[in-house]
């Protein structure tokens, strides 16, 4: 971490806003907290950081800190492009107060602002969308679950009379198609409202949060060791990524390091998770493109990987790998060989299936130019993961904010300037369609296999966890934990309370950033292509709804 860069940034911000800033605090090695005097300047400073300092808004966190002598506190977290720095603009908001919306300058803020309005009852002044988001229309609009004076077990009666206002598209021959929340396949719930002209989709509106389970509120009442299990269940297929991000946030608060071997085991499991999920998504793409044979072969490979997971972690979807301070179980020499043999076999078979798929012109044609994302949309909406990379936005948390054992591995590092330029040219060629996302997933599977080999070849002899982490947590300290799941960057912000309780736990998975892109990606496609576009984006409902 370059402290010179940190200083430069601090100077640039102070130059502009000296009078509006009360303090600038560096924290947890790569966070710079910018504390504002009042909330009138939020919009100016955020816009400056966003456009002049080339930073993306990656999360907005609100917390109710009235009990510890403050008000509501809003934190806008920005990430600098290709630099390991998080800029965090912090402002206090009055109870029942409002804060200026930045959604018209920074589009990616609009969902965070609506979420904060539902959960805390603070009004984003100027946000054009006043409809409820997390708590559906049936809920009383005076209910704000993340306030400290709201009881976790408060069963609020629901009013089933209220209706949700969808955007209506008017005109001759425009038809509305409502889909969901119960879908045709084995899939999570969400509502899609299509407006079509003939077969062409001219507008799509998504309504999510059907699986809202109150995870953030629940964590505040849980023991910190149990909250790890909860974080695994944010999204079942991202269990390692989410629990790793949570554990890393807590470990940062304790300021203690965890053993290298534990970090290596975490990385191996994270890459196993990426592999089995990408195989599953590729199988899904093949199903939705109408090619059952390809799907059945890929599903065999996914099943092999899940059986491998079970031999390593005791759970087919890798539950129970991470604990605070390290990992729960070791990888023995025998298990190491099992991993290497299985991924070798799966790689070989995968190669055969892939060659076959690429030769089927009907399959490739179906993916080409389907569900195309524009580069501008992807960057305005601050998308992450494959959804960003498929249009050539080169972000990957493993590379941008090296964590755990990744700094010691070869993650997209280019040894020569020629290779670097070659990579940059290749980025420009990505079209943002379903085929680009298919190719990227294939590439990531082979990268993961290499990373697993690299890590296992140099497995250090070390203990499995650092038990002191839990004893060393001071109240009201906070930290960001992050991880690259197979869907993209997942960010967890943890603030500790008294007696090792959690004061505030904010989760933002990759799906929250990527969901809005589907509304753009399907435009001008036909309705029948929607499942294919949806699968190629691979979005989680549960990870979004929390």
């Amino acid at each position, binding site marked *: 971490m370059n402290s010179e860069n940190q200083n430069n940034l601090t100077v640039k911000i102070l130059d502009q806003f000296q009078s509006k800033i009360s303090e600038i605090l560096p924290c947890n090695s790569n966070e710079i907290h910018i504390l504002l005097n009042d909330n009138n300047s939020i919009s100016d400073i955020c816009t400056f950081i966003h456009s002049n300092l080339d930073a993306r808004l990656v999360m907005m966190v609100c917390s109710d800190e009235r009990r510890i002598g403050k008000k509501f506190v809003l934190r806008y977290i920005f990430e600098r492009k290709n630099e390991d720095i998080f800029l965090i603009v912090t402002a206090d908001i009055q109870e029942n107060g409002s804060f200026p919306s930045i959604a018209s300058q920074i589009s990616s803020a609009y969902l965070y602002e609506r979420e904060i309005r539902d959960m805390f009852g603070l009004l984003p002044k100027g946000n054009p969308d006043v409809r409820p988001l997390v*708590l*559906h229309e*049936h809920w009383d609009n005076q209910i704000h*679950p993340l306030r400290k004076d709201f009881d*976790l*077990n408060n*069963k609020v009666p629901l009013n*089933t009379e209220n209706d949700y206002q969808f955007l209506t598209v008017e005109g001759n021959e425009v038809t509305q198609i409502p889909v969901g*929340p*119960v879908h*045709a396949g*084995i899939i999570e719930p969400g509502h899609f409202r299509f407006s079509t002209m003939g077969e062409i989709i001219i507008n799509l509106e998504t309504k999510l*949060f*059907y*699986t*809202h*389970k*109150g995870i953030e*509120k*629940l964590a505040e009442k849980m023991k910190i*060791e*149990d909250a790890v*299990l909860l974080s695994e*269940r944010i*999204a*079942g*297929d991202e*269990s390692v990524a989410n629990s790793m991000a949570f554990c890393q946030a807590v470990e940062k608060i304790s300021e203690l390091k965890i053993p290298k071997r534990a970090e290596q085991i975490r990385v191996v499991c994270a890459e196993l998770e990426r592999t089995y999920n990408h195989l*599953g998504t590729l199988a899904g793409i093949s199903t939705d493109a109408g090619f059952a044979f390809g799907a*059945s*072969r890929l*599903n*065999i*490979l996914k099943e092999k990987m*899940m059986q491998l997971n*079970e031999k*390593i972690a*005791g*759970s087919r*979807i890798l*539950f*129970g790998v991470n604990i605070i301070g390290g990992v729960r*179980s070791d990888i023995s020499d025998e298990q190491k060989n099992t991993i*290497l*043999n299985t991924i*070798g076999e799966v*790689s070989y*078979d995968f*190669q*055969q299936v*892939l060659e*076959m798929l690429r030769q089927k012109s009907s399959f490739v044609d179906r993916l080409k130019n389907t569900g195309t994302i524009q580069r501008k949309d992807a960057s305005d909406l601050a998308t992450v993961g494959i959804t960003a990379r498929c249009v050539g936005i080169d972000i990957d948390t493993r590379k941008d904010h090296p964590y755990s054992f990744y700094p010691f591995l070869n993650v997209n590092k280019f040894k020569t300037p020629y290779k670097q330029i070659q990579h940059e040219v290749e980025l420009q060629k990505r079209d943002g369609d379903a085929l680009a996302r298919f190719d990227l997933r294939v*590439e990531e*599977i*082979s990268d993961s*296999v290499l990373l697993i*080999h690299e890590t296992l070849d140099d497995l250090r002899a070390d203990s499995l966890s650092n038990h002191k982490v839990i004893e060393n947590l001071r109240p009201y300290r906070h930290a960001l934990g992050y991880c690259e799941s197979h869907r993209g960057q997942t960010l967890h912000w943890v603030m500790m309370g008294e007696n090792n309780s959690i004061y505030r736990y904010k989760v933002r998975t990759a799906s929250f950033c990527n969901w809005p892109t589907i509304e753009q990606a399907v435009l001008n496609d036909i309705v029948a292509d929607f499942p294919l576009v949806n699968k190629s984006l691979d979005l*989680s*409902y*549960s990870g979004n709804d929390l």
Partner: protein
Amino acid sequence: MKIHNPIKNNHKGDILDNSIYTQKDPLSEILIPQYYRGRIVFRAEPSQHAKEMLEDICPTKAFEKSQMRQFSVDHGKCITCGKCSDKFPEFINIENKFARSVKNRDSLIEISTGEKTISDKPYEEIGHDLKNKIQKLFGRSLAIRQIDAGSCNGCEIEITALNNPIYDIERFGISFVASPRHADVLLVTGPASRNMEIALKRTYDAMPDPKIVVAVGACACSGGIFGDTYATTGGIDKIVPVDVFIPGCPPRPQALIYGLFLALNKKI
């Protein structure tokens, strides 16, 4: 794609030829590896101190001391995290066998003194006459409508796996259908989030009789780790009547198949 140490699988042919990958008996436990965290069993009656500790360390409060002073574990709540068996290996063991599905919610509660409430009838016995039973009741087929009432997607991964060539439940005449109006069985996952309450009720109402409801996973059985909060209802039996409970977090494909067999058994 660069292949790192590719290994050709010698046991079977090329993945693209038509060799058979499907397991003959999907209920066999031979394939379950020793590390799998399946079912909690009592090795011995826990000491008084251990009982108190167990009640405290279990994240889903699956251990309970009842009025009769009996100590029990509720498989419907257990998320198989293994905290209890790590702490008290002398009293608690976590087997690599999965907890069996039951028709009655209370049967998922197992008492520490050794009286087993869950039958240990071999799967094969039920498996062999499955096909006949389906034929008798539904004329060769059983149609399932799956509904996610707020699950984490873990159960969906396992339910999807039932359709892969390894488990391939379609060979038994069991298929997943797109509408509740075509369905004999409603397969429900998740703690029933309150935002899904209305949709779940309406889906149930849309089914033709006889309606069989199967609760899948710890969340659907009891709320699981998400419990009973402002946003959840703490188990789908609070909203629709449940015929079969399949415990597990998530239940493995074999456990799901076993649960579906049991669901059929009830209505005959």
